[in-house]
């Protein structure tokens, strides 16, 4: 049996996922444009010529090859500008009414720019870019098909990918001797790359606290996918913990775009929890 009201809620969940994700997309594009001279110019660390991309990209499938023209320095700046503009428009679409076709068009444009971004920058990108690609591709598919049932599928899919990301990160840490020993977080935070050395050194001088932090991260990540099975409203506490976790990662580790990329999976996850609980309570299946 199909429950029609869930189509509208899934639609909302996916749209909010895309909007939140676009905050990170806009931020990342702006950061790249701001540092384009150091990173993307012909003498930059990720220069077009330096990465030998023109040569490497010739091996790509024929369908993708036209995108190569958009990766040369000037063209790529334009791509970043378009990406920034489209993502900003989608973010403000929360308060300014945009038609469904405009939103779909913007999501497709951002998705294309995400593909170009991924091909152009084989180094320097991180997990937040992968999460953005997943949310945007799913968003583009469901918006193009524009069917309530597909919205439900899309929202559940994003929720599953988000749960998978936490579970895998948690299990990988649980299997790691370094993480189990309770020294990992303090060591990471002692670097300038992903930490704040004063915080890292404070943790290092308090081994019990350091161990607790490591085990908290492992326990949180491993148990995250099971949040939806918790009774009552306990799952809300897990989601809030997740958001606070990402906020701390942004504050202490400087992972600003991770906050938006992973937070974008939360509206679909909330939808999936409600759907799961409704179906379990009413013996309904989609």
């Amino acid at each position: 049996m199909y429950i029609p009201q869930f189509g509208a809620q899934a639609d909302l969940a996916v749209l909010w996922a895309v909007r939140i994700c676009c905050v990170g997309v806009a931020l990342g594009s702006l950061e790249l444009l701001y540092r384009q001279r150091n990173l993307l110019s012909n003498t930059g660390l990720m220069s077009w010529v330096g990465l030998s991309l023109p040569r490497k990209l010739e091996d790509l499938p024929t369908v993708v090859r036209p995108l190569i023209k958009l990766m040369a320095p000037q063209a790529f700046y334009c791509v970043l500008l378009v990406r920034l503009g489209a993502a900003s428009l989608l973010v403000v679409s929360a308060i300014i009414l945009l038609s469904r076709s405009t939103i779909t068009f913007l999501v497709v444009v951002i998705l294309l720019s995400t593909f170009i971004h991924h091909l152009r920058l084989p180094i320097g990108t991180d997990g937040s870019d992968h999460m953005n690609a997943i949310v945007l591709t799913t968003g583009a598919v469901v918006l193009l098909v524009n069917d309530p049932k597909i919205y439900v599928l899309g929202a559940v899919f994003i929720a599953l990918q988000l749960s998978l990301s936490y579970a895998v990160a948690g299990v990988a840490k649980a299997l790691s001797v370094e993480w189990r020993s309770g020294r990992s977080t303090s060591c990471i935070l002692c670097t300038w790359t992903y930490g704040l050395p004063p915080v890292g050194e404070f943790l290092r001088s308090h081994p019990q606290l350091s161990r607790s932090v490591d085990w908290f991260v492992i326990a949180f990540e491993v148990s995250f996918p099971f949040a939806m099975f918790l009774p009552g409203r306990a799952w809300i506490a897990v989601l809030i913990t997740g958001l606070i976790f990402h906020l701390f990662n942004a504050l202490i580790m400087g992972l600003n775009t991770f906050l938006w990329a992973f937070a974008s999976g939360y509206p679909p996850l909330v939808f999936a929890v409600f759907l799961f609980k409704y179906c379990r309570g009413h013996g309904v299946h989609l």
Partner: protein
Amino acid sequence: MLWLCACLFAAWFGLSVANQFETPFTYRLRKLDIFGLISVWKFFAPRPGIHDHYILIQDCDSTGQLLEWKQLLGPSVRRPQSFVWNPGKWESKAIADLLQLVAQANSFGRLDNRTLMLTSPYLVILHFVLGQPCGPEVVARRFALVQKTGRFGKVELSMASDFHPLLSR
């Protein structure tokens, strides 16, 4: 269309799960994933990143005299606003990625410096290093990749290149 999308999402999720394991199939899969849609989610695990990475350069003038080593690139200094605006993370991540690629190239084949020069991460760093400004007397430059553990931790040399002529001279 419903079944098509259901199959698409199911296959995508199945491949995402499979990609978390290190198998010959997933190595092939990663090569095919040109748009980064199938990720590996092992953040900071199994080995957490506990180093800051630096690129140092040393110039050689026309008389053959070696100038002081100097830091070309290192981790960006964190500012209070970094939790919102952190453009320096792109460079930090790019250096970390390049150093990891150099280390991989070096450890798998136990390459000597001459062979290592032909690997792509080496060439990327070399292109960057040679493109940076230098004094009129400089005719050649070399670089070193250095990693440091924490603020007061030990400094390790990952690799040092040979001197490369600055072609414009």
